[in-house]
């Protein structure tokens, strides 16, 4: 490389990085409230509609602008596992998913993409859950989670049972990852929560079931921690989960829990459901792997009742 070129390149590079730092600082200054240090570890809200609760709760965390910067790519992962209508609460509430997508778009996201590797046939799940329409109306994009060529092999050095997994490229590539599980009973894993919801970003779930389900859920939680977890406890499937038989399995609890810590969010959600944290083995296992903390009394929690 010629000396002149070298100088030109390095100057360009430092200018560019300087500019990046600059915009970052600007975002810090204008995109979010000044008192970030005082922000909460977890926000629990109850008594409202899914979209209103989200707006109030996210405001306590410094609005969407804290999580999504202008020009970033966002992936939102709700639970869309089943061909069931919203009132059955087998899938995440479409109003909540729509609101989250809308807020990401408003925060200036370059793209907001939603997918799930569903259990039932994916087009029917997307359509009948109401999520496809909600996302499109909010300016987001839905993509198939059913295309194996979109999954890439990753390794989990901290994993005990699960050492590798095939993960959807959106989870690997996106700048921001928002996890939006629905709070519900689960026949195999006791509860389906934030960490369990991540089973929908991997291809081969059979392996998890064969090799200690709870340990695999905890192991995978060491991969990429979502930037934000929003647990939808608006309608809660109290039994026969995760699929449910009818609306009789569902209680309208009107809850929502927000946290960047999956373990904390799951622990709080278990309490809301009416179980003890120790009843859900993968929460403790994930805590051992330093994914987060389930000691809710050590966290700063904002509780809101509407």
């Amino acid at each position, binding site marked *: 490389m010629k000396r002149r070129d070298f100088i030109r390149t390095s100057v360009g590079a430092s200018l560019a990085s300087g500019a990046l730092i600059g915009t970052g600082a600007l975002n810090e200054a204008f995109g979010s409230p000044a008192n970030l240090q005082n922000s909460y570890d977890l926000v629990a809200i109850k008594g409202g509609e899914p979209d209103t609760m989200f707006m109030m709760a996210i405001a306590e965390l410094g609005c969407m602008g804290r999580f999504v910067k202008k020009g970033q790519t966002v992936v939102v992962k709700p639970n869309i596992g089943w061909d069931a209508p919203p009132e059955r609460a087998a899938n995440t509430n479409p109003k909540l998913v729509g609101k989250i997508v809308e807020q990401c778009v408003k925060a200036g996201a370059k793209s907001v993409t939603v997918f799930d590797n569903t259990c039932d046939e994916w087009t029917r799940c997307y359509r009948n859950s109401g999520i496809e329409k909600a996302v499109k109306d909010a300016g987001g994009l839905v993509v198939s989670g059913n295309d194996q060529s979109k999954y890439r092999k990753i390794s989990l050095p901290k994993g005990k049972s699960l050492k590798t997994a095939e993960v959807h490229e959106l989870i690997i590539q996106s700048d921001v990852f928002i996890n939006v599980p629905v709070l519900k009973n689960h026949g195999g894993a*006791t509860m389906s929560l934030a960490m369990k919801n991540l089973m929908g970003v991997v291809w081969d779930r059979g392996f998890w079931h064969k090799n200690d389900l709870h340990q695999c859920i905890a192991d995978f939680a060491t991969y990429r921690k979502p930037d934000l977890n929003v647990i939808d406890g608006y309608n809660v499937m109290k039994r026969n989960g995760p699929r449910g038989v009818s609306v009789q399995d569902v209680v309208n609890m009107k809850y929502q829990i927000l946290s960047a810590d999956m373990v904390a969010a799951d622990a709080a959600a278990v309490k809301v459901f009416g179980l003890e944290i120790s009843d859900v083995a993968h929460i403790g296992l994930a805590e051992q792997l330093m994914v987060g903390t389930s000691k809710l009394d050590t966290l700063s929690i904002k509780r809101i009742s509407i």
Partner: protein
Amino acid sequence: MQKHFKKIRLVLALVFFAAFLVSFADFRGNMPSRWHSAILYLQFVPSVIKFFTPLAVLSLGFIVVLLLTLLAGRVYCSTICPLGVLQDFFIHIRLKWMPKKGLRFKQAHRVLRYSVLVLALISLLFTGVLVFNLLDPYALFGRMAANLYQPALGWTNNIIAKLIPASTLHAVKINTLHLASVSFAGGSLALLIYLSMAYERLYCNSICPVGTFLGLLSKISLFKLKINPSSCTQCGKCQSVCKSNCINIKNMHIDESRCVNCFNCIPICSENSITYKKSAIGLAKKPVTSSDGGRRLFLATTTAFLAAKALPVFAVNENKSEEEHEDKICFFSRGPIAPPGAIGIDHLKSSCVACHLCIAVCPTKVLQPSFLEYGFTGMNLPKMDFAVNYCNYECRKCGEVCPTGAIVKLEKEQKKLTQVGKVVLRMNKCIVETEATACGSCSEHCPTQAVKMVPYYNGLPAPEIDPSICIGCGACEYACPVTDPHPAIFVAANTLHVLAEKPKQEALETVVEEEFPF
């Protein structure tokens, strides 16, 4: 005006054919079922079979075809029948490829064509619709479309999706190719290409039972193509474009039983000697060469047949006792599982011609062609394959599109209770037992909770089954991670489908705490 008949026929034929291609391209069953039904309404054999199945007396498409034939001759064969149009395509290619080798008059294969028809009808008594399964043009076309055309479309889609990642296309799951059904479809296509290129519409006029039957009717149809002997110069141009080889220019006669009314002969005749005109109320002058033997044979058999009133659909024994649900049932002897709406294996075998439309549109692809699982007379019929997927609880697509009524259209609630088989659990193979870890994959997928997780030991939940509320959808079997050498939980077929009990549901106590629990 009559000069345009050929063009009109061509346009109609292309419209019908395109509709069929769209119908069979609908690999995820997204097209409204009534569109499928409308496209298939006039298919003759399916319509007749459906007419005789329970609750389907409105399947009158075949009456329309009969009336149309009595009025206008075999227009069905040249415009509505997808296999007819497909053959025209190959004949067209051959004529372009070897333009000098024109078409000519050939004698009819009378013995062959009437024997096949009689055999097909007689066989209804013994083998059900097997002969129609093998020879019906729509069934043949359907199998080619479902087993060759649809996978080809899928691959094309996947290649484009791979080459142009930015395109809105994404890779799709292509139906598993089954050696038996693919070779069957491929073999019949190859044979059809050969027959049509070498002998034009030979299949339609010597083998196809529908063609032979409509040929008999068209002898007395109101409108027929006629050569005017006073202006005909016997130049033979008409003969050289006749795909049915039925214009005998020597005696200036058109064999109306073989003529498919393609109208190719009208515009080519420079003397305007061929006209499509009303004959004297069906009583056409008997052509010199016509032999009534075949017709008599046909009429005799039909009468005998109707007297026997033995359309096998009625042979379904409603009182057949429900198969015993024994613990001894093993995975390999569990029997083929017919889709919900098939009523039972007997009904499916007696009315399915294996057109594979249900297989083509099945959104989960749980429907797969069988080989000999249903026995020789049930070859190629659809079966549920839980290694591929499971039957979607809410879906009734196969019954909605089935043109023969072999899979009847179920009401929504009826579908959710139709038990096509019953769950069998091998607890000694279950993960919870062998690995002592949590799993629950089976129960997770079970729509009725016939497989329910109950406390087992050390706080581990294990599956428990209730076959009385199981509908046999196969979700548990598909989801079971055990492969030793087969799943720990599986469905054993019901030979005759029954109604399962409704899942019992008690009301939940809906107390939500006032305070936050943390």
